[in-house]
């Protein structure tokens, strides 16, 4: 994209092509601009939509695990058909749009930030519903026929993830005895895999749109892959994603039993809270190594920000969680 006015002209043309000439685009607002994705709020007349686009239009995935925006749009459409609450995909960007990779989706109103969802009175009814709603949404995600998915969606099971993250961790040459013990424990205690399903890959507060009735949309599908259904159930139980409310195992808001009651009924599986333990330990280790990766961006000089430096001092949060989980496993 050459410059801002080219970009805006392309947005006006796109809006008119998708929604017609009678209600032209009149508001363009950038909502977030991370290294991985741009999010824009566009509105005109009765149409209020979100554009998710690669930074500057260039297709550059967040990590090697990310599937890219056009595959993400296809997944959201498949999830929609399976009854998962998602924003409707309205248009996938094409070459002629001149905006790079991305898609337009409907704008779902609500809150994604964990702190108000977990603490504000306005969300007290939502919190009481959300474990069951998450169970329902995850069962629907895991029911999506996997033979219909775009080829970018790759298989990644528990043992493959251990190998992948162990390699990254060893590459830093910064030994952490707690991570060593966790790696050995996970390998020695790996459960038999369940039938492969589509795994969302980042199902947690931050990526869930919530209003006062509870869960209204599952967002951010770029880490989706094929794997074990317990991975998704456990990821939202990782203590970091309870945002301080440790006593509520699911996302800081609810009980795992409430999620599993609905999930098992819909999926005809019989997963118990204990079956989630191994995956919660793996998820905690993965988050710890992801924090090391983000700190490495500072250490290597790629990103000089204080945020990237400081996140290196959050790795120990996952170490204390792992100690708590290892102790519980050996009590």
């Amino acid at each position, binding site marked *: 994209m050459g410059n801002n006015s080219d970009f805006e002209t392309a947005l006006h043309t796109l809006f008119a092509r998708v929604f017609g000439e009678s209600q032209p685009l009149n508001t363009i607002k950038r909502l977030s601009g991370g290294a991985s994705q741009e999010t824009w709020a566009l509105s005109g007349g009765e149409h209020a939509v979100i554009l998710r686009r690669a930074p500057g239009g260039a297709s550059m995935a967040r990590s090697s695990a990310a599937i890219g925006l056009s595959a993400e749009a296809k997944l959201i459409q498949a999830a929609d058909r399976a009854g998962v609450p998602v924003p409707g995909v309205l248009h996938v960007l094409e070459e002629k749009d001149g905006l790079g990779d991305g898609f337009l989706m409907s704008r779902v109103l609500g809150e994604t930030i964990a702190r108000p969802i977990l603490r504000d009175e306005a969300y007290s009814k939502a919190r009481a519903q959300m474990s069951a709603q998450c169970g329902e949404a995850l069962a629907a995600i895991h029911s999506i026929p996997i033979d219909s998915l775009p080829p970018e969606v790759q298989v990644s099971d528990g043992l493959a993830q251990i190998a992948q993250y162990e390699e990254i961790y060893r590459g830093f040459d910064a030994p952490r005895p707690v991570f*060593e013990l966790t790696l*050995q424990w996970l390998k020695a205690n790996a459960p038999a895999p369940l039938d492969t399903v589509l795994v969302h890959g980042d199902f947690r507060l931050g990526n869930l749109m919530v209003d006062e009735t509870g869960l209204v949309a599952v967002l951010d599908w770029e880490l989706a892959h094929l794997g074990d259904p317990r991975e998704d159930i456990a990821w939202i139980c990782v203590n970091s994603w309870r945002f301080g*409310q440790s006593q509520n195992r699911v996302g800081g808001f609810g009980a795992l039993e409430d999620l599993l009651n609905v999930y098992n009924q819909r999926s005809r599986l019989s997963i118990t809270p204990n079956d989630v333990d191994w995956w919660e330990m793996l998820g905690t280790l993965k988050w710890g190594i992801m924090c090391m990766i983000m700190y490495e961006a500072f250490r290597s000089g790629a990103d000089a920000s204080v945020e990237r430096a400081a996140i290196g001092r959050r790795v*120990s949060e996952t170490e*204390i969680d792992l100690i708590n989980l290892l102790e519980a496993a050996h009590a």
Partner: protein
Amino acid sequence: MHDQPSVAELVQAVKNFIDETAGPNLSGHAAFHARVASNALSTVLRDLEQRPTAEAAERARLLDLLNTPDDTPTEVLNRMLSEQIQAGQMTPETEGLLAHLKATTIAQVEIDQPRYSGLKTAKS
């Protein structure tokens, strides 16, 4: 050499500047980074105060666990421990291992993120 102000006093002064002067004049992403910077300086202050005692205790436990010459540097001890765990020579059942890792990690989180929920769980 002089020590007025001390390192801790200088760090505290910079933190005061961020919290009381610079931070309130920032907005958006810059304001967020100012809060991260202020928290990082709090970590520096705790590290200055707590690390010497915590590292001495860690070192004493490592020497007990590993049965090595007393002059082995702590970094080498931690590497040895990691290698022995990786090789399966030490497991969660090994006498004293989990207790050592727990004590070391508690001391680390007390410096890094003393309000972290998992720390309370570990100490309960």
